[in-house]
């Protein structure tokens, strides 16, 4: 086992609720040797923080998420949650899968109840169902309790996935492009719900997205990953928008375009050229923390360490 520095101090524990320390993923290359998807990835998340990851397809976002879920283990480095190294999946970390991953032979209630009874194994059926129902109603599916996944729309399936994740009252939620398969309207209302639920419950959330606006609306912190192979965390963007933002008026907020342009610039050019133009003083252990649109223009020297 990789030794873990046990955190003694409470504030430090909250500052580094999740700590990703030098993780790597390598696959054997076709001609021998190995391909490094990413290596030496470092960043951390605070308790209750909403963190989004943005990067192009194939850079390894899902792999990082799976490692946080404990479904995969890193080839190097270690992921730490709440002071303990992740060695496998845990009921403390709920995953919302991109493909919703509902069990098609179970009803909506059956799917959520399955999760609930997995967490609280000694609960009676009535208690399990009542608990499951509470979370199904929370995502607005109270009328569809006894429907099977095949009878639900894409948005409704994703809602069940969210209810299932929330129902086990996890310490953190991991979401892999949860809304990418949905139409804009459904996506918008689900984003609202997720934001409301996360703010209400103080959930720590790690979410992968392709959608810049989604990241700006939901995230406190946005991790930018460069293209693979050999992906790196280029920087970490702190969301300058006020915490009480709402989705409809997002674009009217003063800093909105600054963040948006910053993210888009990164996706269009930065993600490609970063590894050949690594800024002076870049330290993979402490990727630069930037706050676009802040009053004072940032220079590399002013960047705080994340």
């Amino acid at each position: 086992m990789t030794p873990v520095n046990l955190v003694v101090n409470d504030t430090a524990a909250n500052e580094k609720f999740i700590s990703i320390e030098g993780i790597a993923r390598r696959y054997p290359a076709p001609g021998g040797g190995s391909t490094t998807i990413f290596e030496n990835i470092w960043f951390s998340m605070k308790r209750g923080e909403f963190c989004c990851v943005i990067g192009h397809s194939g850079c390894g976002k899902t792999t990082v998420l799976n490692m946080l879920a404990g479904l995969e283990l890193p080839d190097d480095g270690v992921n730490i949650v709440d002071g303990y190294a992740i060695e496998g999946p845990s009921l403390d970390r709920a995953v919302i899968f991109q493909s919703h991953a509902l069990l098609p032979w179970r009803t909506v209630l059956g799917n959520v109840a399955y999760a609930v009874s997995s967490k609280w194994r000694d609960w009676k059926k009535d208690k399990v169902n009542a608990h499951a129902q509470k979370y199904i109603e929370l995502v607005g599916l109270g009328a569809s309790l006894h429907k099977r996944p095949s009878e639900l729309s894409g948005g409704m399936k994703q809602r069940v996935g969210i209810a299932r994740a929330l129902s086990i009252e996890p310490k953190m939620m991991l979401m892999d492009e949860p809304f990418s398969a949905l139409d804009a309207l459904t996506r918008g209302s689900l984003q609202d719900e997720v934001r409301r639920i996360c703010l209400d419950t103080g959930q720590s959330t790690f979410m992968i997205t392709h959608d810049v606006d989604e990241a700006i609306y939901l995230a406190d912190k946005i991790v930018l990953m460069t293209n693979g192979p050999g992906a790196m965390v280029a920087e970490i963007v702190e969301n300058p928008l006020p915490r009480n933002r709402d989705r409809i008026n997002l674009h009217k907020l003063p800093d909105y375009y600054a963040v948006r342009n910053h993210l888009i610039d990164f996706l269009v050019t930065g993600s490609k050229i970063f590894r050949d133009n690594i800024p002076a003083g870049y330290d993979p252990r402490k990727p630069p923390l930037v706050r676009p649109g802040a009053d004072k223009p940032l220079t590399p020297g002013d960047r705080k360490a994340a």
Partner: protein
Amino acid sequence: MLTSLNQRALIVSLLIFGVFLLAWHLATQGSGSVQQMDPEYAKLMGLTATKGTSAMPGPLDVAAKIWEHLKSPFYDRGPNDKGIGIQLAYSIARVMTGYFIAVLVALPLGFLIGMSPMMSKALDPFIQIMKPVSPLAWMPLALYTIKDSSISSIFVIFICSVWPMLINTAFGVASVRKEWLNVARTLEVTPIRKAFTIILPAAAPTIFTGMRISIGIAWLVIVAAEMLVGGTGIGYFVWNEWNNLSISNVIVSILVIGLVGMVLDQILAMFARMVTYPE
């Protein structure tokens, strides 16, 4: 057109059946001229020569035979004269016994093969060699070792129904969607609970397809096996009636074998429908 597709299909089915019966009836009417001959010789020549009728029974003869069997399907007058119902019961009992033993072996073993790529590779050569062997080829070996014709038939049923179930179970288990397994993993589900709540329901439709193929093969094989070992059973009945030159009884048996086979298949199909889930 007011009639639905089903109604039209039914009408065509009935028409074909009617035409078939009529053609059968006409073809077995007999061909006329009766020759005068020595009665001893006539006996040897059979009815065709003496009465001008065909030895092949017509639909009316067969109907009469069916009626006869329906009146007393379960009579038992010694080893060579039992009702068709009794003979069927013997065959069905053998098929069920062999089949259920095969289920008991194939499902757990299929699970093991499906879950473990190593076991899958290790057992593959055996399965590949055993699977194409005609189940009847096992018969002499079975008779020699078991020394009981009835148990030998059961063994043959077992050996022929085990492969489709084994292969389908292994395939169904191995191809459970990874995301469902990941759901179980993130929920820290115990291996036993995972087997019963994720893998089994996910693989059930494939498993039942295998079981349905197996019951069909088992029913095909039992007739041949019983012809070979004799004694009791519908297969023996067919062979016995052929030796008695009772073609009517042979035709009745063919019908009955077909009907029972269909019922067995439909029962499995019903189970398969019950466990199928739409995605």
